[in-house]
């Protein structure tokens, strides 16, 4: 799989990562190498194979909807880089 500069720009945007021209160049090469390696999976026929997401058979774990001991608001907000009163403060969302 040949990755091009425009593919890198597209996935960098999806990933919310900004790249310099030099970084784009580096990632074009490295991701192309890795994806070429991954191509080997196409040698296998997997038409009738079920996909697997987890190694255990657990599905839909339910519990009682009971109030536990939550972390206090002060503790939960302690690490916020910017806050105002009881709110997380962020730059303008709507222009």
């Amino acid at each position, binding site marked *: 799989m040949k990755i091009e500069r425009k593919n890198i720009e597209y996935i960098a945007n999806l990933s919310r990562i900004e790249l310099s021209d030099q970084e784009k160049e580096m990632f074009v090469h490295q991701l192309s190498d890795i994806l070429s390696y991954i191509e080997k999976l196409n040698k296998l026929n997997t038409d009738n194979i079920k996909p697997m997401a987890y190694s*255990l058979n657990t599905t839909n774990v339910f519990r009682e909807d009971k109030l536990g001991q939550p972390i206090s608001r002060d503790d939960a907000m302690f690490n916020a880089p910017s806050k105002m009163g009881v709110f997380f403060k962020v730059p303008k969302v709507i222009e």
Partner: protein
Amino acid sequence: MSLLRHTALQIKEKIISREIQATKLVGQVFEWIKYIEPKIQAFITLNEKGALEKAAEIDKKIENRQKVGLLAGIPIAVKDNICTKSLNTTCASKILQNFIPPYDAFVVNRLKEEDAIIIGKTNLDEFAMGSSTENSGYKITRNPWNQNCVPGGSSGGSAAAVAANFAFLALGSDTGGSVRQPAALCGVVGVKPTYGRVSRYGLIAFGSSLDQIGTFTRDVKDAALLLHAIAGYDSYDSTSTQVSVPEYSDGIEGGTGGLRIGIPKEYFAEGLNTEVRDAVKSALKIYERLGAKFVELSLPHTEYAVAVYYIIANAEASSNLARYDGVKYGYRTGESRGIIDMYCRTRSEGFGNEVKRRIMLGNYALSSGYYDAYYLKASKVRTLIKSDFDAAFEKVDCIICPTSPVPAFKIGERANNPLEMYLSDIYTIPANLAGIPGISIPCGFSKAGLPIGMQILTRHFEEKKMLQIAYAFERETDFHLKKPVLKGSTV
């Protein structure tokens, strides 16, 4: 023999019998760390004050003849991607450099309940993404056996801390080999339990269907002790299981009579260093002498495991790491034009290159038009890899193979070639994809004096049998007793 060279069980005995006080021991530990750590760089954060307070509490309990925990007074190091309340937890990333968790991980809570003494948080590859601990956002950890070499990774700090006698025990996490590979490269015992055996609550998520917290110890009995303390159901992790936790130390000396050992040919093929191959083959002779039978077998999809892993782990990582947005915790960029720009700048400045590479690969594999070709395809091949193991375990009790294809490599040697680095985990990744447990134990040394590790794999939830098999070998050998000579060493 210096106190610091003892096993955890021996040191616990000395503390409980009041031969030594926990506070004295902790004092010695930090004295040694201050002397040697500048050469090794195993820790991101030291917890000297907290450790001394906990030690004093344990000394008091013992003096008053109160009941003490399973890990009473044992100094332990914790990988810095496991949350510790009120103690900095960085994941070796700039994006979490000031993060102070408001809660303890399940395993940390267990350590505290069992009276272990947490001495510090250890270095790792940023977000546990790497096989050498060179990708840390803070420092490069060095292998205690040769400081020009890597300790392996991503739990390189924890492995080095146990090998360098900084800690008697350590916790790490293993997504594709991040406990077993550094254990092999540092000459210590490393256990990755069955997926679901140990709660992941408070382990900062990387690849959620693969991540499992594991142990570093100086011998197999210590591994049984520590695993017993941290295993078990936790309602805060819906993938943790209710399967009961056996007493892992019971019957550990039971031997290996009648044991059927599977030798998978794919794990001894091209790419395996000859010294590693010879060491593992010699180890197998010891099992033969002990009465085990060998079964040559094939795990035919092994060659696809690395490719499957780098799709699945990175797809999961790209989703897990979306939470680092500079809003609720962690680093935020200085100036920005609106919220999207703030996200982009925060993440670009906060993440290192390997993390960016993996997030982008993961998002690519999940993106519209590519999902079927990559993620779905990989999930299907994952089924085939698991089926290989299921078929093998019909015929054998365990599988023995090398842990890493090479002994510790030089710092910088693989740093510029991500794909080559990914192949370091070729023998450890399949166990994570299948969810089975694995242990790496010391089985020899290279001519250059670097440790070599051997891996034992068993069925899901058969950790007890795995430890018993490992102990049978350890009892016959002294590889685990060898220690690196650290310059100026008085230990």
